[in-house]
């Protein structure tokens, strides 16, 4: 009984910490996005609120809080309110199975870094949850009772279906290499060969590219931001949202970016490991210092990927709808299938 209570308390603490980290990380991503986009357009970017404009995202969120929350007359009020909650809730709950570091020993107790990182089906749960995330966007589009919103929602569903297949196949190839569905095991497998440098990006370069592209498509980032295409659909599924409901979609987009970067890091970039033994710099296995060190490595890798996503967004124009479908079905799906087939054959012959 005491044990269960302890587990509940531990999980609650971890959940609060992770949600707060995620929201702060969304704020940092917003700041990075605004700064990097400004630099790429020969501008300075936000520099008025706080030193170097660092408090800009908080000012943005404060502004959104202060705004009037409008629900259109013709909207379905229940689903209109539910949609942003689904989107943000799903974006956050994916972190239930994402491990941040190796488990640490604290006062004789083994503490997992993450809420349930030892889950055997971690990556499957992530896939399942990200596909539920599209419901939020589709519902937002439908319940707004607005043609543009509906078009945005429909585009989003079609895009998700087209890209989830290739994404699943790219992940499957990684799983075949690692021989496990658990995210911790996939990271451990990358660390345990070639003196810690057998990151999956080197043995699965095609899979990495496919997963990165589909990851962009899943998070509705440019060049795949068709659901909210400003020039065509006003603002797509969030046209009729204002105030903090819009803020929730906004946060969910950045949380999704962090999620997909985290999964790419775990699957292809060796997770929280670096290609050397941490005992060389005096960090013994299981100590909390090592946990913090690995967590920082993980965060740095995630942020490199987030910056790349921002970089891509401000470089490439949006795909046309037929180009999107062509790329998804005629290019990425066959490539992912071939990649999976070759991986399977190679693994079969080596073992």
């Amino acid at each position, binding site marked *: 009984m005491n044990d269960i209570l302890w587990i509940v308390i531990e999980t609650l603490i971890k959940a609060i910490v992770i949600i707060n980290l995620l929201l702060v990380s969304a704020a940092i991503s917003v700041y990075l996005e605004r700064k*990097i986009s400004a*630099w*790429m*357009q*020969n*501008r*300075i970017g936000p*520099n008025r609120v706080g030193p170097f404009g660092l408090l800009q995202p908080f000012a943005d969120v404060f502004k959104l809080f202060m705004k009037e929350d409008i629900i259109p007359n013709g909207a379905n009020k229940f689903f209109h309110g539910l949609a942003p909650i689904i989107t943000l809730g799903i974006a956050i709950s994916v972190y239930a199975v994402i491990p941040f570091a190796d488990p640490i020993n604290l006062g004789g107790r083994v503490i997992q870094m993450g809420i349930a990182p030892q889950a055997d089906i971690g990556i499957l749960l992530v896939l399942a949850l990200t596909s539920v995330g599209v419901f939020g966007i589709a519902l937002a589009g439908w319940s707004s009772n607005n043609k543009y919103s509906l078009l945005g929602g429909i585009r989003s569903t079609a895009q998700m279906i087209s890209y989830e297949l290739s994404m699943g196949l790219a992940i499957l190839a990684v799983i075949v290499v690692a021989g496990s569905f658990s995210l911790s095991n996939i990271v451990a497998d990358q660390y345990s060969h070639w003196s810690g440098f057998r990151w999956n990006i080197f043995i699965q370069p095609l899979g990495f*590219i496919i997963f990165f592209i589909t990851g962009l498509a899943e998070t509705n980032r440019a060049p795949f931001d068709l659901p909210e295409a400003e020039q065509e659909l006003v603002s797509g599924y969030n046209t009729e949202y204002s105030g903090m409901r819009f803020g929730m979609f906004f946060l969910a987009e950045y949380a999704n970016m962090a999620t997909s970067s985290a999964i790419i890091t775990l699957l292809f970039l060796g997770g929280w490991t670096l290609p050397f033994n941490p005992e060389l710099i005096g960090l013994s296995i299981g100590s909390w210092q090592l946990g913090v060190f690995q967590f920082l490595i993980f965060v740095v890798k995630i942020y490199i990927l987030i910056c790349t996503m921002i*970089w*891509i967004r*401000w*470089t*490439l124009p949006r795909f046309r709808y037929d180009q999107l479908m062509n790329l998804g079905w005629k290019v990425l799906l066959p490539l992912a299938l071939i990649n999976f087939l070759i991986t399977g054959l190679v693994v079969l012959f080596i073992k």
Partner: protein
Amino acid sequence: MNITKNTASDRLSFWEKLYLPEIAKGMALTFKTMFEPKFTRSYPEEKMTPSPSFRGRPVLVVEETGGRCVACGLCSRVCPALAIEVRPGPIDAEKERMPKVFEINMLRCIFCGFCEEVCPEEAIVMSKDYELVFTSPEDAILPKDKLTVPIAQLQDRLEWLRQYR
């Protein structure tokens, strides 16, 4: 009918069709742009210095001996926006008249510069002042004492007028 010949995909080479090298090129360009000098001017700290041809707030030239304006009323007559009001009054000096009231309504002024062009005495010129902020419509009507500017500050505009008018 579908177009089947000479489509965009026929015109592209294999590497261009592959997208990835082209994307890398584009990303290299944006990366390079990040380190180029910025065009933004941090306005309240760094102010623009306009060239002499700039048409800012119209002002009245004042020499050491007094104002140039003889209150002929041509500026008020030519003003397309009816922004200027001049009411003359007599003085003792050899110039016989001077404006008793000279008002420019800055909410009406369109900065066309006709007043400056038509002025026979070079008494009203466009200054470089572009920071025009008012808190009420009454404040925007500038009386004579707010319009007068010493001639020393307007030398380059007068010089420019002499050359190009």
